[in-house]
């Protein structure tokens, strides 16, 4: 059985959502919520966005949890972690929840205007278009990432997601 290569299972860049680094968290959320990716007849929402600079160079990536982290209201992030934990300790009594939802929403809205560059992650690894799937799996595991940019002639041409690699592994093992 011939192993597929990164280029075979990647999503080409023109189909994958990406934004410039100065776009806001709010815009990043819209981008994720409105983009539907279809591979082999399966639809999914992107979990990660690519971030580019003004010269269209790939700068980094931003995951859902990075965005969520970025949304935490300022009045909370300025407090020590212990204090924050306590605020949400509603197991004892839910009515003890000390924050008004209005105040929360306002705080989140404010934070949503921050640029994604403030929460994005650097690109720590890439794979080549011709790399086989074993190499791809290796890079994902080794770097603990679920998405890898695919380079061809030193230029980004697409991305491979862990889910695509997983599907490929399933095909090999289950068929």
């Amino acid at each position, binding site marked *: 059985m011939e192993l597929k290569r990164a280029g075979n299972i990647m999503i080409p860049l*023109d189909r994958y*959502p*990406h934004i410039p680094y100065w776009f806001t968290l709010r815009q990043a959320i819209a981008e994720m919520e409105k983009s*539907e990716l279809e591979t082999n007849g399966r639809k999914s929402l992107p979990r990660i966005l690519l971030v580019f600079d003004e010269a*269209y160079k790939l700068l980094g990536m931003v995951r859902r949890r990075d965005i969520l982290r970025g949304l935490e209201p300022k009045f909370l992030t300025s407090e020590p972690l212990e204090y924050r934990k306590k605020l949400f300790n509603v197991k004892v009594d839910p009515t003890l929840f000390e924050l008004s939802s209005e105040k929360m929403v306002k705080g989140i809205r404010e934070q949503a205007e921050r640029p994604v560059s403030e929460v994005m992650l*650097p690109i720590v690894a890439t794979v080549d278009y011709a790399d086989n799937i074993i190499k791809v799996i290796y890079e994902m595991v080794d770097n603990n990432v679920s998405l890898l*940019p695919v380079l061809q002639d*030193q*230029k980004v041409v697409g991305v491979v997601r862990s889910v695509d690699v997983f599907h490929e592994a399933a095909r090999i093992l289950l068929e």
Partner: protein
Amino acid sequence: MKWLRNVFRSGQEEAHASLRALHEKFSDFLTLLETNNHVLKIISDMEEKSQGEYLFDINYIRSSLAEVRIGVREIIDKMIALGGEPYEALREQYAAIDAEIEKALPGNRRIERDDFTIPFDKLGRERASSVGSKNAQLGEMRKLGLPTPDGFAISAWAYKYFVDANSLQARISKRIESLDIKHYSDLMRVSEEIRALVVSSPVPDELAEAIQKSYSELFKGTSSRRFSLRSSAIGEDTLFSFAGQYATFLNVGEDELIARYREVLASKFTPQAIYYFLSHSLTESELAMSVGCVEMVDAASSGVVYTRDPVKPENGCVLINSIFGLGKYLVDGTLSPDVFCVSRDDKTLRESRLAKKTVRLTAPAQGGTVEECVPDSMQQTASLTEEQATLLADFALRLEKHYGGPQDIEWAIDHEGKLFLLQTRPLRIVSPRTTAAPPDVSGFRLLMAGGTVVCPGAGSGPVFHVASTQDLAKVPDGAVLVAPHPFPGLITAIGRANALVARTGSVASHMATIAREYCIPTLVGLEDAGALPAGESVTVDATGAAIYAGAHPELAMARRPECELFDDTAIIGLLNKTLIHISPLNLVHPGDSDFIPQSCRTFHDITRFAHQKAMEEMFSTGKDVKHKERFSLRLKSDIPLQLNIIYVDQDFSQYGGKSQIGENEIESIPMKAFWDGFRKEKWPVRPPSGDFKGFVTVMTSGMTAQGQPEFSENSFAVLSKEYMILSLRMGFHFTTIEAMCTQEPSKNYIRMKYKDGGASIDRRVRRIKLIVDVLSKMGFENSSKGDFLDAMISYIGADTVCEKLRLLGRINMMTKQLDMALSNDAIAEWYTRDYIKKLGLQDAKDGGS
């Protein structure tokens, strides 16, 4: 080193020449806009006059036309100066249109050589140009075998002979041309001067002899030697009625013949006669006066017969008015006449209404006329027998048949009971016009009031807001259209509208012309019109400049005559004939393939074409200016755009070597507005490089960035106080924004071109669609192709220009590299909605906040 200095100097000279050329072009451009505006105003005024609500005369038509001609020629000259040879074709087009206008205007008809006097027996209607209609018709009636008094005509040629012999024409013309008919005192003065001039001028001997000779022949062998001298002006009694304008002398004797003849000629210049022909587009030079010398009928009774009732033409009656004595007391209104209605079918008397006729005018043997009392026993008897009435009706209907139209005939019956027809002319049937009192609107709920009336009238219907051409297809029948400004595209929906309201606009806009052509009640300049509730029924009372809640068809009905005021009186007819070649707009969309000089069929087309093309030429001139780096100022700003500014209304040397200016030093209203908006949206600031530690940037191949490093080419602006052309290179997209912002809405416009981008074509196209949607909300007309957009808005007030420029500034910043993010339609739609909201452009009906 010398060669280097030379090179530098020659470069310097070229740069100066380039700047001079730019200044000149800009000045030509401004002149063109200015002239265009002026011409449109005159055209609009002429159109307004053609609605029949204002007083004007032939001098008005001539002077307006002269101004329009000068203006259009100037526009063409400037267009050629701006764009060169391709626009030469406009000259030909102008000449062709002008030739048509010339044909429509009454020329200075030449008076043909003829005999000084011509007996009625030799006359027919074909001789009207020589002897006037009144004389010619007397000859024509004789030919038909109808009874008329004998006589002869003193021809127009005789008049010309008299005028030339005394060099009167120039002196008369000079006085009339300086006349303003709205000032009656002026009219009086001029009239008196001219009449004095005519009456004091001698009749040349050879003319006097010819008249005497004809007179002797006329009365050869008759006992009665009395006659009447009647005016018969050329042109009189045909298209124009002239009723009662010129003098008639009754019962004149031989000794008075020449003096009275001269007085009839002078009567052409009574104030009312001058007024009449000025207001009927006739010039005195074409109205030569012929005079009829007619055997006096010693009338027992006389009057007028109309072959139809002029106010109720459908009632099938010949209408006869009759009094005792000479007819003068009837036509001048001294007496109320007996009225006889004779059936047109069987010529039987249907009805007679007798009036009390206390006096009559008679022609005594010693000459002149005398009023005498009618004996009491006669006062209420019929002045006409049934037999006579029937005979008269019969003659009248024969004349109607002969002339092919209703006639207005003067007649007299002498003491022997012999009937004479004295004159016939076409009868003007006037359809009754509703002259109802202004409608009562006291019970209506007023929604808003104000604005400028572009087309009077009133119309009801559901409110439909039109923001752009895209909305037009959805306009329901019978809607009240509410538009942000009267943009040309509205024409496609106007046929379905009952009324039109625009927040801005003026009577000079293209759309105003069209609204009037279509008689759509139209109000413009109603700032709050955007607040009219969509879908709700309202009534726009354009005449009253008010909008009421609910449908009020009775108001629309009552206002109807006002928007159908088109009148067919001669002067308005002439104005309309002229306007056919001046005001209709055939060239509407610059994108159409027939938007070329050869398609210009009216002066308005030429101005429209030139206006559009002038903007385009200015645009490319500004863009391609050479050596601009040598005479431009760099804009100091924290926005990292290398923006160079060239002022076209300032002398570069005044900067004294200064090479930079600050943002608050911008001396251009449109540029200031744009830059305000531009700054409002933040330029992306790259975090300090430390923050990006560990970030390796990776080149991308999926992008189509053309490999040009960012900002390789400087952005620049060509500015004046009221104008800007700004060319920005925003990273991967180019945008050029041109704007004119003056106090004259008709001169103002904004145009934006937007192209390219760094992302793949589908994302660039999505971005263009997003911009189109946003700009449509702002009232722009957009034409886009792929990732290229050309958007335009015009005829808007200065404040609106600035407001829209601020928005464009923001939009340009907000869409910088937005294409990158538009990976699918859903996300593009989300951004469109988000931006429309951010920019405050959502409709009331979309739900605010």
